[in-house]
């Protein structure tokens, strides 16, 4: 059912039936209208002779009598007698003058049913009245008899007609919905595509369809259908036409809505779009003007506007007042520019920039002084901050150096103890613990120094042209044996050709060294460690991936913080500074360092602009 809606022949069939039902609905609606006017549906008796068709027909015949009424003689010409003889016609007429005297008639007193009276003024300015009658038993075989027969039939079928109308309308809308579903869909795909009809600007297309829909309505309203058969033909055509137009409208809008951004394909949008550019560039031009020029332009515009619109201007006084206002505004603009320039200098970090407030007045002076004070405050704060940062690094470095000396003794004597034959077996275990922990302390002190130096930029950086691929293969070579010992398999995939970057090879090796030693420490035994280089958006990137042995239930940002390690228990080796040092070192060289954690997959990426 759904797929059938995409087939062209199904669409054509459905459209054909839809139009058929629309036409049927039009015809039956015409009939219902006729019946309704006759009061069929509002209850009461139905009289064939009172039906609108009968009335219309009588009106036509009375008009005919009136047209053929000979004004000069006050008699009808002979064709009337012939036309309305009792053999030929069921229509009778009597023409009376104003005083009620019968001037002319063919009414012979037969029982009549319908009766219609119309008054008119003839050419000699005399009022006449025409009475029209229809013979009750309709002996003549004329229009009245067929109308009566038709009306009788319609009356008998009034329910069917109404039902036909309803069913036709329902069927039409059902087919409409089905066709709308199929609109834009092609056989074999689910993609909705626009046809050439859907590419017509939407407002233009809709307006054209609505205009076309208006015509039948207008025609129906203006045209008096005197022949009932004509009415049905018209109603049928109109129904089919309107049905077709409505169908087209619904189908195209469905496609347009589904394709999104339907407003982009409209004449209104094109016009707005066309005007947007010059308006925007004008706006940008005004925006880019210096403050004083901008102000001057606005003042000038205001003055011109005033000259044009302001009627009651008193020559000299008007000039004086406006000149004073313009001067005051421009004066304000000059100082506003000075303040603004000073503020943007401060925003760029030039806190020592001072505003000369000696020639300023009022609020401008206060504001300038305030800005100067803010600048002083920030400069002082920054200076203190730098000093304290520096002192912190100094302190950490010195303390670490001082720790190194006693640590040397500890390590040496532990080593000596190890070579002694210490008797209780337990003591050997204790010495092992001392050995392990003193080595850890050593690594920690070295890392603390390096971390503090790297984060404060206290390391000389010599940027040179390096090849990321060479460095990666060197790193992999250095770690090949250690990885194998840790039960890990390195997998290399390097981008073809040289990946030249500006970096300090020695520092970048320390970064890769840290990342790889993490892999050795924390990767799951028996998994692979991927080392690859990539090019993306003009950046050369080194990517390291490995599977963590313990679950990484912390975020990548946390992992990069100092003293944070991948294992919550913290009982493995390592200081938790490696990634923090790596990040700082990469930043020092102008690169980017990022970590991603996806389940147990740990991914570190170092990227530099490719040169």
């Amino acid at each position, binding site marked *: 059912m759904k797929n059938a809606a995409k087939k062209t022949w199904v669409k054509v069939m459905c459209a054909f039936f839809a139009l058929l039902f629309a036409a049927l609905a039009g015809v039956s609606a015409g009939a219902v209208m006729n019946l309704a006017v006759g009061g069929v549906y509002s209850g009461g008796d139905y009289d064939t002779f009172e039906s609108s068709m009968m009335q219309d027909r009588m009106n036509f015949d009375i008009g005919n009598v009136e047209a053929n009424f000979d004004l000069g003689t006050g008699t009808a010409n002979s064709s009337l007698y012939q036309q309305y003889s009792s053999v030929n016609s069921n229509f009778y007429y009597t023409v009376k003058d104003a005083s009620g005297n019968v001037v002319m008639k063919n009414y012979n007193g037969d029982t009549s049913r319908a009766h219609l009276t119309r008054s008119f003024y003839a050419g000699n300015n005399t009022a006449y009245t025409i009475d029209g009658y229809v013979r009750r038993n309709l002996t003549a075989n004329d229009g009245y008899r067929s109308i009566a027969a038709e009306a009788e039939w319609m009356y008998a079928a009034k329910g069917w007609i109404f039902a036909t109308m309803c069913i036709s309308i329902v069927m039409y809308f059902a087919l409409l919905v089905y066709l709308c579903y199929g609109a834009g869909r092609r056989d074999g795909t689910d993609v909705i595509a626009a046809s050439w009809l859907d590419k017509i600007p939407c407002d233009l297309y809709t307006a054209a369809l609505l205009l076309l829909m208006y015509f039948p309505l207008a025609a129906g309203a203006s045209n008096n259908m005197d022949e009932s058969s004509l009415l049905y033909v018209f109603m049928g055509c109109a129904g089919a036409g309107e049905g077709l137009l409505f169908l087209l409208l619904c189908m195209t809008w469905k496609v347009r809505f589904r394709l999104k951004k339907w407003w982009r394909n409209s004449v209104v949008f094109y016009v707005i779009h066309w005007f947007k550019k010059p308006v925007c560039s004008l706006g940008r031009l005004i925006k880019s003007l210096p403050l004083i020029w901008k102000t001057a332009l606005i003042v000038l515009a205001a003055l011109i506007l005033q000259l044009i619109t302001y009627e009651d201007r008193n020559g000299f006084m008007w000039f004086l007042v406006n000149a004073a206002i313009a001067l005051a505004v421009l004066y304000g603009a000059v100082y506003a520019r000075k303040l603004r320039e000073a503020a943007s200098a401060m925003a760029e970090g030039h806190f020592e920039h001072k505003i000369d407030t000696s020639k300023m007045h009022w609020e401008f002076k206060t504001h300038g002084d305030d800005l100067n004070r803010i600048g002083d405050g920030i400069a002082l704060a920054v200076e203190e901050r730098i000093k304290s940062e520096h002192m912190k690094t100094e302190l950490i470095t010195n303390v670490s*150096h*001082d720790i*190194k*000396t006693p*640590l*040397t*003794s*500890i*390590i*040496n*004597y532990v*080593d*000596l103890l190890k070579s002694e034959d210490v008797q209780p077996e337990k003591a050997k275990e204790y010495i092992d613990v001392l050995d392990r922990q003193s080595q850890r302390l*050593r690594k920690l002190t*070295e890392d603390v*120094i390096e971390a503090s130096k790297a984060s404060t930029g206290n390391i000389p950086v010599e940027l*040179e042209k*390096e*090849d*990321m*691929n*060479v*460095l*990666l*293969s*060197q*790193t*992999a*070579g*250095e770690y*090949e*044996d250690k990885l194998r010992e840790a039960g890990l398999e*390195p997998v*290399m995939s*390097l981008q073809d050709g040289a990946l030249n970057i500006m*970096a300090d*090879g*020695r520092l*970048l*090796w320390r970064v890769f060294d840290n990342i790889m030693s993490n892999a050795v420490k924390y990767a799951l035994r028996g998994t692979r460690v991927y080392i690859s280089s990539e090019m993306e958006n003009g950046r050369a990137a080194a990517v390291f991936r490995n599977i963590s042995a313990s679950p990484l239930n912390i975020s990548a940002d946390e992992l990069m913080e100092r003293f944070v390690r991948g294992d919550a228990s913290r009982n493995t080796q390592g200081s938790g500074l490696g990634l923090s040092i790596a990040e700082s070192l990469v930043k020092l060289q102008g690169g980017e360092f990022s970590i991603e954690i996806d389940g147990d997959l740990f991914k570190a990426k170092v990227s530099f602009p490719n040169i």
Partner: protein
Amino acid sequence: MYNVLVCDDETDIVSALKIYLSGAGYGVLEAHNGAEALKLMASEEVHLVLLDIMMPGMDGIAAMAKIRETSNVPVILLTAKSEDTDKVLGLNVGADDYITKPFNPAEVLARVKSQLRRYMQLGCGTPVVPANLCIGGLELDDASKSVSVDGEDVWLTPREYDILKLLMQSPGTVISPKDIYKRVWREEPIGAENAVAVHIRHIREKIEINPAEPRYLKVVWGKGYKMEAIK
């Protein structure tokens, strides 16, 4: 028996070093500042000096400058400062080697041994056979395809030997892994990016005392490898 002068203001460190050095068969002289060291140098026969930099009174750098005025005995600096600038300063003033604290006792012994062998056995004027490639204490004999460090033979695989020879032929020049591969393997390095790096690592482990801080075979990160040009 060689006499080693150990000079550090930290008595515990001096004692520890004394234990190690005597254990290895060296005579040990103790000093706790620069002045004491100089006094001992004048009165005793000293074959090697282990000198701490940060000491009260006369510090290590000043003491070394004094020693160098009269003697070319090997001096190994012991330092808690691991900054590169300190190392360069120490080596420029006349140190032969340096060890950063906290040090590994085995490494100290290896360095002492290496310096002493060079100073006592090879000396400065030992005639070098022209066929041999010689850089510092590193010697490569192409005739016997053998390599020795400070007089001690080192066993290298043929591939490692070829790489070392290539690097020793042009000391001070950086050679990229790709070029090394092409010249040693004599084929294009496709999918064998880190083969050279692995071999270099192995060579370093064989010829260097501390492979992480090589004296001879240096890694120029991001570029290649080079043999340090040492006389």
